[in-house]
């Protein structure tokens, strides 16, 4: 009881007064928010300005005189941005979808069935969370060439799914462990087969599906290594690779560079802001074990 009282008192104190502690915490956090967002804002603001204005006053917002969309115009006419977006969307959604489906199936079985090989299989996936898949790049290239998949989006999808499945399985196992066994037993008593039982349990782990999807999405969208090596052709470039190549070509065209960077950055910032809760939950649950 006494503890409850202090808790209430403390909450009241926190809400009403600006203590030194509170001012300090807010000040430090605001400073770091400025450090984190400042450079991004500088790039976005300057992407809407003329070249002289970019160099004349980098931190000034665009005015009537200095506002210009010429950079965006050059990005769309000289770059392949729409194609790059399409490729990134295909690769990312396919990889995320396959990862979510395959990880969920595997994790369900690894939690559900008591077979001697299960600890070994589960361990294989858990270790995979830390495994540097990139170091196997040379055999991956050779395999893709043998399968006639070099320079295709499918090659990227296969590798990214393989790369994401370990974290997906590890995460989903933690969610399936929270499902009450009675539910599955009841389903089986009613005559449901194993796949039907899985379907019945699935709605209970929906937060896990969202967590896996968001954690998988970012590294796939942002990767440079595999697009560079497995799908470098003009028609298959992802946004990350497209931006990299574009910047290499237009080194001195600041408005176009800033526009390209803005186009590369903004979609992910928006997506992350919407899904940040699921993302953060997934990240901490996946590695925290």
């Amino acid at each position, binding site marked *: 009881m006494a503890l409850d009282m202090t808790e209430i008192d403390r909450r009241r104190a926190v809400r009403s007064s600006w203590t030194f502690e509170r001012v300090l915490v807010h000040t430090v956090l605001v400073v770091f928010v400025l450090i984190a967002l400042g450079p991004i804002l500088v790039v976005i603001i300057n992407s809407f300005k003329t070249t002289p204005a970019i160099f004349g006053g980098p931190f000034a917002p665009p005015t009537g005189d200095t506002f210009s969309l010429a950079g965006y115009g050059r990005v769309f006419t000289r770059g392949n941005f729409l194609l790059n977006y399409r490729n990134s969307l295909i690769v990312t959604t396919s990889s995320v979808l396959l990862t979510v489906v395959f990880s969920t199936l595997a994790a369900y079985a690894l939690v559900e069935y008591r*077979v001697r090989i299960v600890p070994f299989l589960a361990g294989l996936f858990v270790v995979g969370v830390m495994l540097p898949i990139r170091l196997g790049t040379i055999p991956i290239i050779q395999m893709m060439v043998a399968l006639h998949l070099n320079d295709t989006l499918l090659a990227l999808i296969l590798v990214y799914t393989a790369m994401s499945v370990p974290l997906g399985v590890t995460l989903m196992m933690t969610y399936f462990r929270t499902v009450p066994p009675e539910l599955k037993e009841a389903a089986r008593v009613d005559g449901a087969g194993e796949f039907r039982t899985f379907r019945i349990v699935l709605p209970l782990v929906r937060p896990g599906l969202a967590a896996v999807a968001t954690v998988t999405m970012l590294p796939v969208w942002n990767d440079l290594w595999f697009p560079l090596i497995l799908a470098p052709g003009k028609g298959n470039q992802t946004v*990350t690779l497209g931006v990299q190549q574009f910047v290499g070509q237009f080194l001195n065209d600041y408005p176009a560079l800033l526009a390209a960077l803005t186009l590369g950055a903004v979609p992910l910032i928006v997506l*992350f802001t919407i899904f940040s809760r699921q993302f953060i939950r997934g990240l901490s649950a996946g590695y925290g074990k």
Partner: protein
Amino acid sequence: MIRQSTARWSLFLFVLPALALYGLFGIAPLLTSMVMSLFDTSRTADVFIGLANYVYLFTQPVVSARFWNALGNNALYFTIHVCVEVPIGLLLAAFLTSGTLRRSEGIYRTLLFIPTTLSVVIVGFIWRLIINPLWGVVGFPLLGTAATALPTISLMGVWEYFGIPMIFLYSALIAIPDDLVEAARIDGATPWRIFWGVKFPLIVPQFGLIVILTFIWTFNGFDLVYALNGSAPGPNYSTDILGTFFYRTFFGSSGQVADLDLGATVATVIFFIMLLVTAAYFWLVQRRLRAHVA
């Protein structure tokens, strides 16, 4: 109860798609790389040559000098990340969970994590534009000087990724039972004492884990350096790390012929460096920490 034969079959079918892809494009290529490093595959028939590729890597003057240079640079790259990024993450996580924030906690958490969602390519270019002497914000060619180039790139990486240790340590800190902290508060402990005396000892295992994950990620690094400086990262290889060195061996670059077997050898060496350090950490440090906490 499920019959054992049903369980075995179901396990097989449920796990198969995930295991097949992970095995085929994840595990098998890593193992194949190790095997390849023992062969000469450049002729019509593969020839077993034992450790000749390793001997070449460590004794050929130019190649071995580049390798040690890249390893040393990578060690510095990792050290800067651990010494700057992890403490920043800890500080922010501590402040986010200090109990003084209400609704703003989630907003700060999201805003601070935004750089982490960006592609390293974009991060690299954003910073290159900002620190370009042409633009005049910074007057000194930080990337063009051998002594400052790698620390500059490392700090760009820190700027992008401090959100990761922050979120890790944040989720460890919010998992601490309230009554422990409350008890200390009633005893009159200051926030500083509560953090270092009560909270931090409880999250030491996660703190160790983020250090080892940072090690794995930085030793797997490539994108940021390549985006800024290409595959032969200058000035004069001062920003060359293992990822770019590995890329050059199998992809080739100006002045270097592509060599798949040597590439597989380099990959295997990097893999064993990571394996040894990670294994040593888990055996020597993490096990003791868990025993201590339990």
